[in-house]
């Protein structure tokens, strides 16, 4: 398969398995290893079903077979990622980190996808971050006087695995850090709500920005344009409440329907971070195709 880069997926939970399904569709990626810890786990069984090469040896699989892949999606945990990176940083592998480890360059494809090409470890922040940061970036570029930004994401309980639940503090603190970085606004707050309703709710994110009333037509046009850019890699991304000015703040609401690759459509939260990761990995692949860069030459 010339032109495709070889990728390994480390971690066979919800994120890892959904990434696997997405790589099968990609014109630029070929999944050569799907790596977990237990060949009988739900994710591994799915991997077997689609005929990908499985391993239950964790990072050792890559250490022992360094030629098996050029890029690794790390869908394990922040703590495991620190260990994985200690083994990978002196290799030529590119790592797309799905965990809240905070060691890689933060990438939001609609904003800074090109930055990925200059780093070998890139971090996908969080689902709420991927949903909100592009719009916040647009807002702060288009308007002056933004004093405070607040992001509230509601996700279906059924889409929040054990990792998300235990790491709820990390989710908040990392998303806030990314929000500050991309918006250049220091005063930010992130809130996460788990909703157990059955049938499950779609992921929804609300952005509120305390500011003087901006030119709403200009802002709405800029936001609509950004929505289109995001839809190019997250098909289920939809602005359900375009910018409104209410109670001294601008409010925008987004709903994310997942593609239903592994988890059902309501899990837009898992879908959006995975779509962002796939877009990033494909960028490396395209960069390689056009000889814009040599994978081996990028420094960490």
């Amino acid at each position, binding site marked *: 398969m010339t032109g495709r880069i070889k990728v390994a997926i480390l971690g066979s939970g919800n994120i890892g398995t959904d990434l696997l399904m997405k790589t099968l569709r990609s014109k630029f990626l070929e999944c050569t290893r799907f790596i977990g810890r237990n060949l009988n786990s739900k994710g591994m069984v799915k991997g077997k079903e689609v005929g990908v090469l499985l391993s239950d040896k964790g990072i050792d699989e890559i250490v022992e077979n360094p030629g098996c892949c050029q890029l690794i999606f790390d869908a394990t945990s922040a703590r495991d990622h620190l260990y994985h990176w200690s083994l990978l940083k002196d290799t030529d592998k590119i790592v797309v980190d799905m965990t809240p480890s905070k060691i890689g360059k933060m990438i939001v494809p609609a904003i800074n996808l090109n930055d990925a090409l200059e780093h070998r470890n890139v971090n996908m922040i969080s689902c709420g971050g991927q949903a909100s940061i592009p719009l916040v970036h647009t807002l702060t570029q288009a308007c002056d006087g933004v004093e405070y930004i*607040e992001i509230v994401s509601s996700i279906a309980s059924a889409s929040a695995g054990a990792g998300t639940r235990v790491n709820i*503090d990390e989710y908040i603190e990392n998303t806030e850090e990314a929000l500050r970085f991309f918006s250049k606004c220091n005063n930010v707050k992130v809130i996460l709500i*788990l909703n*157990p309703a059955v049938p499950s709710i779609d992921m929804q994110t609300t952005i509120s920005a305390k500011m003087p009333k901006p030119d709403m037509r200009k802002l709405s046009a800029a936001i609509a344009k950004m929505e289109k850019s995001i839809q190019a890699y997250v098909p289920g991304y939809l602005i*359900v409440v375009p910018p409104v000015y*209410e109670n001294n703040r601008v409010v925008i609401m987004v709903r994310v329907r997942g593609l239903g690759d592994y988890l059902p459509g309501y899990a837009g939260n898992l879908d959006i971070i995975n779509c962002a990761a796939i877009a990033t990995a494909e960028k490396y692949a395209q960069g390689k195709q056009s000889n814009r860069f040599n994978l081996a030459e990028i420094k960490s």
Partner: protein
Amino acid sequence: MKNISIIDSTLRDGNHAVRHQLDKNQIEPYCAAAEAAGVPVVVVGHGNGLGASSLQVGESLLTDIEIIAAARSNLKKTKLGVFIIPGFGTINKDLNKAIQEGIDLVCVSSHCTEADTTQRHINYVKERGKLVYGNLMMTHMVSKGALIDECLKMQSYGADGVILMDSAGAYIPSDVTEKISALVGSLKIPVGFHGHNNFGLAIANSIVAVEAGATILDCCVLGFGAGAGNAQLEAVVAILSKRGYLTGIDLYKILDLADLAGKKIVKTPQGVKSISIVSGLAGVFSGFVRHVERVAGQYGVDPRDVFFELGRRKAVGGQEDMIIEVAINLADKRRKNEK
């Protein structure tokens, strides 16, 4: 004679009723008087707890730390408590500082099906030698079996007790009996109840909870709390004493505390208003009332329609942003019908 632990949440849940604008001149004398009355625990802070001051649920006049400091300097024997909902507040940003500021007790709270989000926070408080209760919110939404499962998790994390919150004021007394007795029969730790007064049943429900085996009651003087308010603490104490339960609270002094709150804190008396009945019937968190009234007014829709639609969508506490979306949808629908 059975001991009942009373938790006074006037300066926490009551903060909802004044849009989180409680100030030092209210907190300080209130705490001094609560201490004098022998109230065992006073819980203070933003209505949604540590780290919750936000556009989403309302901005607080004072910071969490300012509130805690004002209360701390006026409490000695009375324990000082705070409330935290993981997803709003975090250990690093909020809980850690509150513990450094000298609090004695933490209520770690989650929606009634999400107890596993409280594990790390309960562990953290417990490891620092403080008392910790696990609170479940909106407990009308699920069965007693589901509540037992979630409370067992909190018990396994190290909670010193669990408190069922009727956040929407949706319980009638038979619901209380069913759920509280199921928990009392299944747990090793004390069980508590926190009622809201949407149907005018908060006091009755609290007494019924005790009769079903609850040993913790979380109440507010004058019923000062979100929406229609809570179980009126001084009345609950009076009834408990008449029924032979011990609370350690001095009756005259708790009545004085309520009078003090009436003069210094409670601007509009709590009462069962029409909109609160709708909120209880729809099973939507009582704290939504102020937001629903404001947003419904702005978009020219009936706040009752907004509440029933929120109930249909099973909005949980913290999803106040959904109010705007629902109001816009209702306004659009009406405009289409008029055409």
